[in-house]
């Protein structure tokens, strides 16, 4: 059973590399179990925001919190799905999906069974022994999703996971994501530059601009485009 979703908080957080950074003094609250979609133009700091939440990039000012506790580094509670292929190419689909469980030293048979269940759940039964290079882009993203969820995270951070897919595969993946997330109570922060995707997936939408973050609840396509 998945534990309850994490409350994620950015409290005046400034993030980025080099002089000036990318995000300055951002305040944002993500409620447990909600799907918050972050939209913004290229270079607006969407990925930087996610890396901060993942604990891969510490803020140089302000704080980032998970359930009230300051994030000091990556944690299995906050799994990340990348736009680029984050699968380990030398591991088969099965061994990629069981990785978070192997890291936790779950006994081999148990983790294999759990990984097989997740592989079937994302519609890839029969592909367990394939290497990532033998899969299409959409299938690799399914494996990334299964791997992230196999570790039973309390938050899933998704960095334009469907950005490189064709329209049909993207629609299929969006349906699968909503379907799979229904069985978990994980908090989801989903980054995209596609407004339609944001409207379809998000409970709330955060628009990232040079002026900061603006939360839009129940916004229309036109309102979001106006904010960007």
């Amino acid at each position, binding site marked *: *059973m*998945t534990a309850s979703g994490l409350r994620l908080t950015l409290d005046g957080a400034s993030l980025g590399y080099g002089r000036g950074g990318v995000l300055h003094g951002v305040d944002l609250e993500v409620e447990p179990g909600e799907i918050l979609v972050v939209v913004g133009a290229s270079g607006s700091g969407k990925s930087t925001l996610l890396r901060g939440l*993942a*604990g*891969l990039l510490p803020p140089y000012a302000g704080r980032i919190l998970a359930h009230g506790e300051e994030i000091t*580094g*990556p*944690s*299995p509670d*906050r*799994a990340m799905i*990348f736009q*680029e*292929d*984050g*699968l*380990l*190419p*030398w*591991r088969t689909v099965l061994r990629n999906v069981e*990785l*978070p469980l192997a*890291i*936790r030293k779950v006994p081999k048979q148990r983790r294999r069974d*759990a990984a097989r*269940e*997740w592989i*079937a*759940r994302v*519609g*890839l*039964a*029969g*592909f367990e022994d*394939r*290497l990532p*290079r*033998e*899969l*299409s*882009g*959409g*299938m690799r*993203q*399914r494996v990334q999703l299964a*791997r*992230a*969820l*196999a*570790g*039973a995270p309390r938050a899933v*951070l998704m960095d334009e996971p469907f950005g490189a*897919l*064709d329209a049909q*595969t993207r629609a*299929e*993946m969006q349906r699968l994501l909503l*379907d799979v997330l229904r*069985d*978990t109570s994980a908090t989801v922060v989903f980054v995209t530059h596609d407004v339609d995707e944001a409207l379809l997936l998000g409970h709330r939408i955060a628009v990232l601009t040079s002026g900061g973050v603006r939360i839009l609840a129940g916004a229309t396509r036109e309102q979001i485009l106006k904010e960007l």
Partner: protein
Amino acid sequence: MSVARTAEPRAAAPGGGAAAPAAPPARPRTTWRNRAVRVASLLVAAGLWQLLTVTDARIWLRFDRLPSLDEIAAEFAERLGTEVYYLDLLQSLIRILTGFGIAAVAGITVGVLIGRSRRAADVLTPLLEAVRPIPAIALVPIAILLFPTDEQGIVFITCAAAFFPIMVSTRHAVRALPTLWEDAVLTLGGSRWHVLWHVVLPGVLPGVFGGLSIGMGVSWICVISAEMISGDFGVGYRTWQSYTLVDYPATVVGMITIGALGWLTSALIELIGRRATRWLPRAEGSGA
């Protein structure tokens, strides 16, 4: 974790755009014509050698002192029947495997250390870069002074020769690893040790095997040279001894033996490397 219901596996490739291939496409076959050309190429070279040596040709290059193929073949047959041939072979192999083995372990360890740790790089790089330009064979005097026996000196030279290509290739491979894989393991709950075990070590294998392959080649150059300079036995020593005794057929037999050993050990590394990096996409027909 809740997996309430199991999705039905889709009939075709799911969410895929392009379907996953049912089976990899067949590699272009090596036809009998390709093989015939390869054999003919060897036969022409051998025939030319025979022609030039039996006619004692002197066409600026002097073939009159080189043995003909039949002389070499007769010498080879005779050598194969002697115990000393196999002892030499064994001795050279022990030296190369010891020196190369130590170099492989040390080279990979130091390469990973330098590639991953800035502090280790600051401490070790100046020393290693100061020694690296010195050809291993130029270390012979140091080896003679440093080690109590010739045997240890030869292994040291062999090890020094292989160490640098292995270390440099490993260091480059570590630094070229995409950070994405490391980030993925860290966000799945992995520690730095997990990153080392699950990302760095498997990820650097293609580069490491490149270094091992080069290292084996230079190891052979150095072990044979060292045996010629200060060995008591071994294939290099025997080849040089045959030359000084004006036994040219035996010299060529030694050269052929060295070539065969070098080829065998390199082929072994290539084979292990290909098996260990099966996940790499390979060009069609590669290795045919």
